[in-house]
């Protein structure tokens, strides 16, 4: 059997598995994927690997007693076995008071996230793409360490009420750190695409080389509050902490940055600048994603923060039922709307500020305020009178993305970025922020 099943093959397989079910309710989830990667460091290939993964998960329920079992070997015999095992586990399990009956069939949006170009990536393609990058760094006497990873796969689900969902996707992520031979300069680039035709490793490498050369002989600035321009790669790792924490239950329970005094949540309240609009849209051509969430709910276009106001929170089906509201699934992508300004415009309009190209080692310091700490890395620059003056030494920051989005000056044009923390892809604009808090200097390059 192929690893990547077509829609009709996946449907037939799910039906076969369900045919063995004797439980009150049954749900089948399957996935198949093929991944390949090539890693290099010190201008040489260090490791390469490939991964083939398939998995089938069956959830059986007798009343509110639920059991889950999985297999990674696909055969008729194993399909029946996994169903039986999930049923045995369900019978042994204590009642789950939070179990909600499986969903009726849903209607999903159309989203094209599978590209034949990416599906066709092979070891030769990876070697050639990396060779283009290495030629540049070697010829310019710079030192490269990079990682190229591609993936093709699908996921599907079916339940005993007749719901069926299927989504195939492809992706490629490329990241590269270029250092000067004396270790005084370092530059970074990361690109993520669904369609590998958009990936140009040579152009990306040139960006990292330019940042690396430009970051040599950095001067120290006093820590304090500065106007910053965050490139989308830097902004993403801060903003995703908002995305991860949009859960209604935590907010209602009083243990989220979206909780407030008196035991209520901040739903429908303005929490950031009115120009902030964050939404999810699985059909966005630059960031296609699954039109259905893990539990089978339709992932429709959804506003999360609209004109600075919290418009929606994630409601699990259990929490929605308990609170008598409509369930809202966790989004399958995240997009922050932007303006029209280019990076040049943002720099030109800055009298005194700091250009941050990447942030690193982001950790939550206080979940109450979403205060985060971390450091600038791989190219940080001082801007004066609308021009980049010189590279500066890296800073540690302590800042909350909520406070930051209240101190918004200007938004640029969104672009697809890869989070250097979670590896997730987003559409994020560059942004100018006033009074961003840098608390100490770092000697790291």
């Amino acid at each position, binding site marked *: 059997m192929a690893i990547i099943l077509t829609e009709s093959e996946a449907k037939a397989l799910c039906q076969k598995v369900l045919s063995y079910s004797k439980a009150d309710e049954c749900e089948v989830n399957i996935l198949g994927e093929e991944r390949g990667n090539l890693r290099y460091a010190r201008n040489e290939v260090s490791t390469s690997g490939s991964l083939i993964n398939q998995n089938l998960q069956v959830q059986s329920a007798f009343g509110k007693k639920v059991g889950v079992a999985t297999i990674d070997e696909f055969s008729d015999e194993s399909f029946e076995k996994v169903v039986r095992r999930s049923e045995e586990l369900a019978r042994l399990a204590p009642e789950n008071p939070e179990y909600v009956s499986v969903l009726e069939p849903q209607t999903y949006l159309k989203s094209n996230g599978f590209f034949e170009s990416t599906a066709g990536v092979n070891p030769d393609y990876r070697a050639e793409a990396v060779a283009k990058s290495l030629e540049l760094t070697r010829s310019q006497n710079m*030192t490269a*360490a990079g990682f190229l990873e591609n993936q093709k796969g699908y996921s599907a689900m079916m339940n005993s009420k007749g719901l069926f969902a299927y989504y195939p996707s492809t992706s490629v992520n490329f990241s590269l750190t270029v250092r000067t031979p004396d270790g005084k300069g370092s530059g970074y680039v990361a690109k993520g695409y669904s369609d590998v035709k958009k990936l140009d490793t040579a152009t990306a490498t040139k960006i990292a080389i330019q940042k690396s050369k430009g970051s040599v002989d950095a001067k120290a600035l006093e820590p304090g509050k500065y106007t910053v321009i965050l490139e989308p790669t830097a902004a993403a790792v801060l903003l995703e902490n908002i995305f991860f924490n949009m859960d209604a239950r935590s907010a209602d329970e009083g243990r989220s940055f979206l909780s407030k005094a008196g035991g209520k949540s901040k739903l429908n309240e303005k929490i950031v600048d009115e120009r902030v609009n964050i939404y999810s849209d699985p059909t966005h051509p630059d960031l296609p994603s699954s039109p259905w969430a893990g539990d089978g709910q339709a992932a429709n276009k959804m506003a999360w923060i609209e004109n600075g106001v919290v418009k929606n929170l994630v409601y699990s089906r259990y929490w929605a039922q308990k609170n008598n509201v409509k369930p809202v699934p966790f989004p399958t992508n995240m997009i922050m709307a932007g303006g029209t300004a280019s990076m040049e415009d943002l720099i030109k309009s800055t009298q005194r500020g700091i250009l941050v190209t990447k942030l690193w080692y982001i950790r939550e310091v206080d979940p109450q305020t979403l205060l985060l700490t971390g450091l600038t890395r791989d190219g940080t620059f001082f801007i004066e009178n609308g021009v980049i003056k010189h590279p500066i030494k890296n800073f540690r920051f302590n800042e909350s993305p909520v406070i930051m989005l209240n101190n918004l000056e200007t938004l640029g044009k969104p672009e697809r970025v890869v989070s250097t923390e979670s590896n997730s892809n987003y559409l994020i604009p560059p942004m100018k922020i006033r009074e961003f808090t840098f608390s100490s200097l770092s000697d790291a390059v």
Partner: protein
Amino acid sequence: MKRRDFMQMSGLGLSAIMMPSVPVIGSTVAAEHLLDPWMDATSKKKLTEIALNAARSKGATYTDVRIGRYLQQFLYTREKQVQNIVNAESYGIGIRVIANGTWGFSATSDVTPDGIAKCAATAVEIAKANSKFQKEPVELAAQKGVGEQTWKTPLKKNAFEIPVQQKIDLMLNVSGAALDNGASFVASNLFFVNEQKYFASSDGSFIDQDIHRIWPTFTVTVTDKATGKFKTRDALSSPMGMGYEYLDGIASEKIAGPNGLIGYRNSYDMVEDAVLAAKQAKEKISAKSVEPGKYDLVLDPNHLGLTIHESVGHPTELDRVLGYEANYAGTSFATLDKWQSKNFAYGSKLVNIVADKTQANTLGAVGYDDEGVPCKEWDIIKDGILVNYQATRDQVKILGEKESHGCCYADNWSSVQFQRMPNISLKAGTEKRSVLDMIKGVEKGIYIVGRGSYSIDQQRYNFQFGGQVFYEIKNGEITGMLEDVAYQSNTQEFWNSCAQLCDKDDYRTFGSFFDGKGQPSQISAVSHGCATTRFNGVNVINTGRKI
């Protein structure tokens, strides 16, 4: 062919948020299946010989083979209910070769003679293909074959033999104890891991190892509706290289600390800690917000372990120093020239840091590493001076050494082994000194217990650490609890401010159960031992904000 399942256990309560992606490797099985015996050593030896012969016949000059069965049992509860129980098993074979002077690796779950031979051939093909990019051939430190050997974690109670119901009862008792003492929410986790791995190499080693690890933990949350404030306190347990006996809560393994705090050595009382956690989380709601400035810090082993991990463990990994991790984890300030100078003062004269993979009950303790090197202990920092690194067989020549440090590890049969951190521990002081003795000598300080938020730059200079519980020290006495505390320092400055050590009676290990490194990322588990230690004049910031 590599085959590996990777389920992300996220969103399972606050403890899961603390560990955003807990990797479950393999397919789920019944709990009883985790006790089923796997292949015997003789059968494994035969299979590894197929791989060794196949690789040699295809042109490999060196081969090592790992047949592994990796078992995990993870349990999750929230308040009075069981959220999830995962029993997972993963098995297969990983073959690593040197051909044309270059590494090649391939893995398969098809553990048949035919599948293994094909896998060995693929590993050689990959090595030959990658050799086009190689400038210098790989050179391994010699390792004499050790013949047939076995090693087993010296545990008293195999956690996989303890009925699931007994574990659930414990976790629900933890919930009950916390809720009865003022907790609003409590999420608990029990993690059990067993690696059954058989290593064989063309050097003539055939090593059968059975390794067990355990980590019980929880997060207690207290919310205050009126103010909208909430505070958490995580368990003060440690991940250990032990069996279920770690949860016995033996009195002789407890160290009484100030303000009702209890230090747990090699035995942990989870219910007792949950009671204290609920009380402390409640106290944190109204604790005084710290005045920023310079303080002398008294750091408990359950806190300092992570600081050691980040500021000594990672920077002395030789692959980082050389630039192999530059694109992700970063490089290191502890460059070779500093080591070569023989006078780089990493810390004060009191600072003696040892690396080891032999200390009993630790996460790093094994008999042999994943390239067949017998484990040992060696100095990293001696009397404050940087004297060595952590290295593998293909790296030690850079240090002028002929014998590997035994620091090679892969998190699964399907992952290629590479340099991973051994236990890195700070030696206890030689003068008799308790925590109370230490606090008595501090005029203006903060006593910090537990692992909080942590962040360090990519060369390991600048770091910031929080904690779980903070007490203000004034004129030799604890005056009350503090909140919004984080300290920032520079690694060399910090370790040079090390002013006093408690003695061996206070020595305990802390550790990291899911330490991530590499691309694609692999996990590993490592312990860090120390006694309570004092650092003078460290910069403390206030992390309180309003949104």
